[in-house]
């Protein structure tokens, strides 16, 4: 199979609506999710959830770990619970084929070489502020639409996904600086952004002076 075939196989697994709901729930959760919690969140039976979750694991979209949920140990403690989380790999299909990633990498290299960090940040800030949704006050929804997977951690809004992951890995200062400006641009007045990374996610976190969540 080609890489494209692999991607089709993985994404085809998501054509089932229940499976898609389960995937979205687990992928957006900052912590590993057990079968009971996933079943409850999606509104299906535990056994149906388990069946679909394991299909998602087989497709490479979710990863598994085992954890004891109770404090008890030794005989009678029961088997450790099977926990699910988003798998690390990336899957993308574009029809017809598009190579925006390649273009992005080339552009980033040139911007880095030319030292145009400030110009990039200004453009990112403007693009964030120009988001038609950003004029409203629901920053959480704006971030969700853009793929950041926001979640509340006490009073702090954290972002469980980095939409620029591979580029950020390669051009850290450039891309993270761009992303910080983009998020600050999206944030209405009353919010402040900090560099406070979420493991496996985005390096930016946000706080609202109004604490209105």
């Amino acid at each position, binding site marked *: 199979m080609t890489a494209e075939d692999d991607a089709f196989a993985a994404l085809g697994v998501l054509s089932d609506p229940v499976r898609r709901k389960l995937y979205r729930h687990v992928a957006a959760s900052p912590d590993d999710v057990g079968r009971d919690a996933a079943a409850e969140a999606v509104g299906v039976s535990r056994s149906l959830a388990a069946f679909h979750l394991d299909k998602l694991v087989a497709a490479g979209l979710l990863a598994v770990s085992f954890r004891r949920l109770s404090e008890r140990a030794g005989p009678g403690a029961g088997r450790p619970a099977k926990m699910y989380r988003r798998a690390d790999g990336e899957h993308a299909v574009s029809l017809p084929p598009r190579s925006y990633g390649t273009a992005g990498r080339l552009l980033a290299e040139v911007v880095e070489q030319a*030292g145009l960090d400030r110009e990039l940040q200004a453009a990112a800030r403007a693009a964030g502020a120009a988001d038609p949704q950003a004029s409203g006050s629901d920053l959480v929804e704006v971030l969700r639409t853009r793929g950041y997977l926001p979640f509340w951690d006490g009073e702090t809004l954290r972002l469980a996904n980095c939409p620029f992951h591979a580029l950020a890995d390669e051009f850290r*200062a450039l891309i993270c600086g761009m992303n910080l400006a983009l998020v600050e641009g999206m944030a209405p007045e009353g919010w402040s952004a900090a560099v406070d990374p979420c493991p496996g996610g985005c390096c930016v976190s946000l706080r609202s002076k109004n604490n209105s969540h």
Partner: protein
Amino acid sequence: MTGFHVAQVNVGRIVAPLDGPELADFVAQLPEINALADHAPGFVWRLVDDGGADSTGLRPDDNDGRLLINCSTWESVEALEDFAYHTDHLRVLSRRREWFQRMEGPHQALWWVPAGHRPSVAEAMERIAILGERGSGPDAFTFRDRYPAPAAIS
């Protein structure tokens, strides 16, 4: 523990004199960012000038009054990376072009030193030169193309 620490050096040419308005924000943030480094997990040591607080008084090139040097040692490349890219240091880093010119050729390098070794300015500058001459290798490497610590001598 491997018995080795990773050393990092980077140099940068400031766009204006250190005591001028252009560099004021940079200078103002130094104490906070240096304190952040000093308390970061895996931090071992950083180069300071005779003044003692930071290394902005050092000029690694006698012929270049605006070239600053920054050098430190860490328990691992990952610890250094966490500090450099996963803390408020990133906020300073993202403003680098307000304060530092873009330089031709390598301006930073990583290399392994025996735990406890404190690199001199000359040693650090030599590692940048090695990276420029030979590219990434065990004697001088980059985050993107990193090399493991030498095997512990048994």
